[in-house]
């Protein structure tokens, strides 16, 4: 893969950018100014989307007002999967190009992704109570998300268990790649299994043809949560950069400045 990549004709600028991106210091210094802007945009989008969704969108004709949980459940469920895929991509970058920064991103994404997975699971379960009359049902979607949570916990456990950070990074990369290949297989097998056992399950999120006044706030929240995810990953990675590079000159100098 690296062989193919190295032999493609990349524009010089892109190639330089790619190599510079490998530098944790570059990441730390470049992304610093982005954070307030991203955070502000995230707050705006989520604020508008949530208020709109909670107060202005009409109730669902079947589920009434409980459907308003959708405005956080869907973004959380989406980020839960996106986070795992991001980890696997970082894993490939780490294994192929040995880019330390990819490992730092991967280490940061794991707990954040797990948090969103937990959130998707919890909101889904709370939503289940008014919809199905019980907090827990072995619905295909919820079951897959639960397994996804186990996968996240496995990666976090593995990273904690391995002492050398360098080895922990590559071990997690392997596990993330194996896991990401498995995720669609798990999802389809669970879906298929559930339909085999309880045909025609009432699916909560496939309400037919939502009117724009209902899906626009959802879109806003999905975008907003994406930015929120980006903010927390960038912040977390910046901290991770400092911790791992604590013995380099530039971090020591930074600590000195902070003191003044």
């Amino acid at each position, binding site marked *: 893969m690296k062989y193919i990549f190295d032999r493609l004709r990349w524009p010089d600028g892109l190639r330089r950018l790619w190599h510079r991106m490998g530098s944790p210091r570059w990441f730390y210094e470049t992304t610093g100014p982005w954070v307030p802007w991203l955070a502000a945009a995230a707050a705006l989008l989520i604020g508008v989307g949530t208020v709109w969704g909670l107060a202005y969108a009409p109730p669902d004709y079947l589920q009434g007002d409980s459907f308003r949980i959708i405005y956080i459940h869907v973004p959380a469920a989406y980020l839960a999967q996106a986070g795992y895929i991001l980890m696997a991509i970082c894993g490939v970058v780490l294994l192929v190009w040995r880019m330390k920064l990819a490992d730092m991103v991967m280490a940061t994404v794991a707990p954040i992704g797990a948090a969103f997975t937990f959130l998707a699971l919890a909101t889904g379960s709370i939503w289940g109570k008014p919809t199905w009359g019980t907090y827990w049902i072995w619905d295909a979607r919820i079951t897959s998300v639960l*397994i996804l949570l186990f996968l996240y916990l496995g990666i976090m456990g593995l990273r904690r268990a391995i002492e050398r950070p360098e080895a922990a990074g590559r071990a997690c990369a392997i596990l993330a790649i194996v896991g990401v290949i498995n995720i669609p*297989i*798990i999802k389809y*097998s669970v879906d298929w299994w559930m339909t085999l056992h309880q045909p025609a399950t009432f699916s909560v999120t496939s309400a037919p043809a939502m009117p724009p006044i209902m899906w626009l706030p959802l879109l806003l929240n999905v975008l907003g949560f994406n930015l929120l995810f980006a903010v927390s990953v960038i912040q977390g990675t910046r901290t991770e950069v400092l911790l791992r590079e604590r013995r380099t000159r530039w971090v020591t100098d930074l600590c000195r400045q902070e003191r003044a």
Partner: protein
Amino acid sequence: MTAPLASEPSLWVLFRGQLRRDLKLAFGQPSELANPLAFFVVVITLFPLGVSPEPGVLSGMAPGVLWIAALLATLLGLEALFRRDRDDGTLEQMVLRAQPLYLPVVARMLAHWMVTGLPLTLLAPLLGGMLNLAPEARLPLMLGLALGTPVLVLLGGVGAALTVGLRTGGVLLALLVLPLFVPVLILGVSAAELASSGLDPAGPLLWLAAGASFAITAVPFAIAAALRIGVETG
């Protein structure tokens, strides 16, 4: 400058040598060989005692019980898979010397499957009979296990390789690999269930066959990469 080897290195010798060594090691310790099988039988015995001895109830849950017991028995055998080799240094010799590492890894997993997955598969119809499994489900159950246990052993091998140098191995290993076992469990159980309700089990069995061929091709690379980490420093 240096004398060449007697001839070009032979990949077949590499594969066969590893397989022969691992089988010798396995059969050198009959108790370790028998433990996962005994566990399999004991777990299955618990279900009629813990749930219900009613033949009707048993036959309904037989495929699931047999598969979960097989899953746990596989898991039980995984922890020691690379540990002894790591401790006595043979693992680092294998990682250093074997070229490509893929071949001895496949041989290692094949040997492990021959002493765990294969006997489980052969034993399953007998225990299925004790659980009142429908006779027409016997063959699909065995086929499912024959195709599914290699996948379990391979995926488990990744977990075992990743945790080979760790003190907290056992529980972490279960957390790492059990979620990955889910599709195999579902496909294996549904093949047996479809057959026992008189339907065609070919669908899930074909999926299992596809999964097995993919796993045999791709997963040893992941195991090899994980083993390289496992022998580093320490």
